[in-house]
């Protein structure tokens, strides 16, 4: 399907004969009255002009993800008049999306996100052609979808998909505008722009996602918006900034191969930047900050775009690399023996029968989650704080008592069991391991138990009205 190293000269000449000719014909086209009026305020901006607007109208752009980033990005991309806008998403609109996913509506809850967002975009601008792709992007369909477009905007929500999209963009020579956001911070970076064939290293070229983030964080460390929360304006700013970058790329012809006479060679070697945004919610007077970080160019050793890369489109389709495994999504197994685990239902039953001795119930969720509801008597020690105290204990800077948080618990009989519960049952297992490691099991006198499945299981098995969040 695709040679390992595309011949840049072949690529160049086909671009020259095809795209360039095409562009000459297209750029002689005049605007309709509606286009002229609709785009007038943006066309008179220095650097845009008639040429820039025609490039937008003649281009095809793909937005992957119709959520917190995709909605604001799509609004401005549609408004600017990009001719063909593809949107990929397999989800449906949910109530908990609406505080940030501004392209959907309360009246469209339950509708496919692609259809809901396109409905909204048509209201803003009916002129572009909107193409819905109503399933999630995956290794099987990624190349087929991405190959239909000139520029890709990554608005997805998980690491496996981010690596997949970046890899396919490298192989298909597509610029990628990538952003991400969680809680109170966001990141934006333009990758593989101007697009450069895989393996080319004769000068400085733009990096791909793997050049910047060589390996993903451990599966448990990666927070999703559903788990960690997200502020609407933060993800919104990042999405809007993505639209700005995409419009800039197309209007200045940076998406065209460097060989194309219509491309912008003087901009080709600009050092890429990573835009970082973060804002402080804990302190009302704390500033929010934007930082533009200078990034390095393409890495010689990069797995995807580097010198000896073996990455191919056929390989990706066949499951090589395995993105899920690379990002550790399959790893949700427990290392704890069964006798150190108890289901939420069994814990509740034993407790209500009065069979449990005096014990500590440690809830390792964040205090915001804890504030909405807890099991009676639970003590809140957020997981991060627990790990830090554990580290301090190891250094000799704290006592094991301090791990259990509040002082009124002390002294605890040395055989009083500790039960640990978290949100969904992963952190609690690690917490049990940590406590055992610190010798808090008192040589087997004390049981340290994980409540399987966390508060989610508590809601499902014990208290259906529990405000799980």
């Amino acid at each position, binding site marked *: 399907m695709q040679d390992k190293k595309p011949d840049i000269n072949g690529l160049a000449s086909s671009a020259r004969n095809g795209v360039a000719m095409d562009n000459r014909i297209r750029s002689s086209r005049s605007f309709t009255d509606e286009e002229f009026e609709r785009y007038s305020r943006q066309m008179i901006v220095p650097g845009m002009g008639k040429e820039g607007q025609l490039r937008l109208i003649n281009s095809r752009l793909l937005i992957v993800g119709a959520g917190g980033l995709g909605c604001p990005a799509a609004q401005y991309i549609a408004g600017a008049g990009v001719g063909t806008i593809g949107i990929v998403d397999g989800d449906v609109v949910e109530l908990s999306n609406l505080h940030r996913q501004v392209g959907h509506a309360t009246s469209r809850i339950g509708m496919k996100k692609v259809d809901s967002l396109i409905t909204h975009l048509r209201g803003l601008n009916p002129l572009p052609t909107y193409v819905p792709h109503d399933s999630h992007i995956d290794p099987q369909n990624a190349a087929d979808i991405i190959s239909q477009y000139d520029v890709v905007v990554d608005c997805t929500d998980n690491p496996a998909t981010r690596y997949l999209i970046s890899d396919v963009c490298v192989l298909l020579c597509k610029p990628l505008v990538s952003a991400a956001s969680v809680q109170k911070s966001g990141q934006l970076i333009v990758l593989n722009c101007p697009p450069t064939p895989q393996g080319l290293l004769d000068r400085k070229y733009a990096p791909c996602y793997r050049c910047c983030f060589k390996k993903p964080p451990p599966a448990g460390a990666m927070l999703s918006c559903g788990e960690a929360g997200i502020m609407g304006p933060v993800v919104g700013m990042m999405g809007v900034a993505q639209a700005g970058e995409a419009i800039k790329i197309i209007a200045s012809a940076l998406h065209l191969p460097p060989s194309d006479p219509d491309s912008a060679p003087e901009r080709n070697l600009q050092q890429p930047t990573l835009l970082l945004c973060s804002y402080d919610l804990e302190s009302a007077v704390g500033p929010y900050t934007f930082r533009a970080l200078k990034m390095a160019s393409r890495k010689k050793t990069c797995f995807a775009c580097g010198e000896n890369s073996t990455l191919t489109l056929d390989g990706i389709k066949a499951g090589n690399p395995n993105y899920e495994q690379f990002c550790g999504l399959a790893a949700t197994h427990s290392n704890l023996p069964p006798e150190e685990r108890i289901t939420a239902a069994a814990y509740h039953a034993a407790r209500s029968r009065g069979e449990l001795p005096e014990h500590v119930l440690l809830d390792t969720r964040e205090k915001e989650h804890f504030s909405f509801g807890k099991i009676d008597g639970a003590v809140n020690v957020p997981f991060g704080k627990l790990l830090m105290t554990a*580290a301090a204990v190891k250094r000799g800077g704290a006592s094991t008592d301090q791990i259990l948080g509040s002082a009124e618990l002390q002294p605890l009989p040395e055989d009083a069991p500790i039960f640990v519960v978290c949100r969904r049952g992963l952190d609690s297992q690690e917490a049990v391991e940590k406590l055992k490691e610190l010798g808090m099991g008192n040589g087997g006198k004390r049981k340290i138990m994980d409540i399987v499945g966390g508060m989610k299981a508590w809601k499902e098995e014990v208290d259906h009205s529990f405000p799980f969040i």
Partner: protein
Amino acid sequence: MTSHPPAAAAQSGSSGKFTILYFASAGSYTGKQMETLPAPLPLSKLFATLEARYEGIGAAVLDHSLVTVNLTYVEMPSGNDESEDAAAAVIIQDGDEVAIIPPVSSG
């Protein structure tokens, strides 16, 4: 190596400190958004210094994060990259601003 410009944000005078910023999961792990640490410090000792302060931060955060000094990406001197030698020579100076930037994935 002091080719990077001095950080405008960090006006710590000549107190022998650099500022370190913890973004996203680095902030959750350390429980703070920033702090100051003693300078000068060779870049090659940065991760070990942080590991000593926040046990486990290496595997949980640093291994997959990118690092900047004064708003410029620096290669950490631990991989097999070509810039290894240059990276090994970088010294974090008094008044520098270092940032730990883990990837964020949600959207």
